[in-house]
């Protein structure tokens, strides 16, 4: 698995809602070697403040050398990116980390909450391209309100997999959490669950999958400085009490390998 540092030109900028933005970049080296669940480190501006790169999971890649990131304008780094223009260049470094390990022959249940929807599009594309029956595959997307979910629904629908949505305020899909939807679905006994979203959601996925004896992989978030195992800043406690590092051991983990709060 090789890593690349590229000056990537912004070729598309989509303001999907007031704060949610999607940027498409030309990064052929990264695109060619990326796997679903991997991430890139991006410099959001040229100056010293913010100093560090920011990690972004790969939302989508194309065979024509494009990558997409999807993010919310919530901090200094993302606020600078929110003002990026088509034609500008961003320094991209990746692909990094371990992506999802896809069980080819098992039904897949993809669960994305909030910005955790980001890596699910890439994964949905891979899952839908597997030459097997897809009638038991399922995608569940959720967010706080309509604007966290609706703008992405068409992109997921193209894969033809069953799709359910939920919002905290009921403004789109059912009112409730993605995990409520998950509990209401009848999953095949050998389903693999793939999740990304807030920590509490991932913890519910962990407990649910343990209870149902299902495989469950989740992509977790962390602050990072380097993204490549040099700074050791992104540690998490694993189930045996030792530390793992999100950037090189993850960002995708089997939920059983991590320590959960409760």
């Amino acid at each position, binding site marked *: 698995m090789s890593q690349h540092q590229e000056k990537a030109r912004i070729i598309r900028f989509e303001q999907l809602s007031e704060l949610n933005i999607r940027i498409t970049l030309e990064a052929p080296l990264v695109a060619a070697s990326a796997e679903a669940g991997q991430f890139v480190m991006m*410099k959001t501006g040229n100056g010293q*403040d913010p100093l560090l790169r920011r990690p972004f999971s790969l939302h989508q890649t194309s065979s024509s050398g494009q990558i997409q990131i999807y993010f919310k304008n919530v901090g200094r780094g993302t606020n600078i990116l929110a003002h990026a223009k088509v034609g500008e260049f961003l320094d991209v470094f990746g692909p990094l980390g371990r992506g999802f390990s896809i069980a080819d022959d098992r039904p897949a249940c993809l669960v994305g909450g909030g910005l955790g929807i980001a890596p699910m599009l890439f994964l949905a594309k891979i899952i839908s391209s597997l030459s097997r029956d897809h009638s038991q595959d399922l995608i569940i997307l959720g967010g706080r309100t309509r604007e966290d979910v609706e703008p992405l629904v068409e992109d997921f629908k193209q894969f033809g997999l069953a799709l359910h949505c939920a919002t905290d305020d009921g403004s789109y899909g059912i009112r409730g959490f993605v995990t409520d939807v998950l509990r209401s679905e009848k999953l095949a006994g050998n389903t693999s669950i793939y999740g990304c979203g807030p920590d509490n959601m991932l913890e519910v996925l962990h407990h649910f999958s343990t209870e149902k004896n299902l495989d469950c992989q989740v992509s977790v978030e*962390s602050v990072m*400085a380097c993204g490549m195992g*040099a*700074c*050791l800043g992104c540690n998490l406690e694993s189930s045996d009490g030792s530390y793992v590092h999100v950037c090189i051991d993850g960002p995708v983990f089997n939920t059983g390998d991590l320590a959960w709060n409760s």
Partner: protein
Amino acid sequence: MEFVKDHDPYPDLRVNIGSLELQNPVMTASGTFGYAREFEDLVNLHRLGGIIVKGISLEPRAGNPPQRIVETPCGMLNAIGLQNVGVERFIAEKMLYLKGIGVPVIVNVLGDTVEEYRQLTQRLRGVEGIAALEVNISCPNVKKGGVAFGTVPSMAATVTEAVKKAADVPVMVKLSPNVADIVEMARAVEAGGADSISLVNTLIGMAIDLQRRRPVLANVIGGLSGPAIKPVALRMVYQAAGAVKIPVIGIGGIENTEDALEFILAGATAVQIGTANFINPRVSEEVVEGIGDYVKANQLKSIRDLIGALEV
């Protein structure tokens, strides 16, 4: 100043740190470059002046709980807590690759007691591929000992003596900036037998999460690095270099050629690049090239002509 001949395309960037010759003055700082292999896809490792590996202790250390790092204006705080694989695994798993790179590998050593430093140094004796040791007496993130060695001149000298006595390679001592008088510390480790001094390590700082009313870092305090600390580092290198006879290696917020050259002018024989590796993995190699261009453009005979050439 002498002039190079026009047809000579290779600027002379060689520097000597005591008996250790570097092909150029740019090294990667401990804790920011892993064990080098992490960077092999992105950096021509053989072009570096030297590689200083992540600090090693006698026994493996798990390090601090999360959260370990946080970005601050023009810098970052870290409290990694000296996580490392321990000396046995380091020798068995990491040295084989490191010694094949072809540039001097400097092993950063750390301990909680003088005896630990001595034993560790003893263990590293005769290990093939180690060009020098860098003694970490200044990491601010462990509660036992580490800070005291770095802030009390007599203790710094004692550790230096112990390592020097047990070592079969040159010994560089890395100083903490968290002291009242950097000159006193520099002189103390020189008197203790250090072959060179590197400075500065991180400045102790903290960050608070107002919403949670808690420190951001699990360790509460951490070490500040990055461009934010460069002026402080430059001042300390200038003062230390003026006070000791042994070579001084400048560290602190270097992120480009200009920064590196400023440290050399201030008296540094070589420099270490740290936090900038996280942002631009290629930075050290770019600085080597940039220094070469500067030497050529200014028609210097050697980069050595610039060491301490600051006019005050």
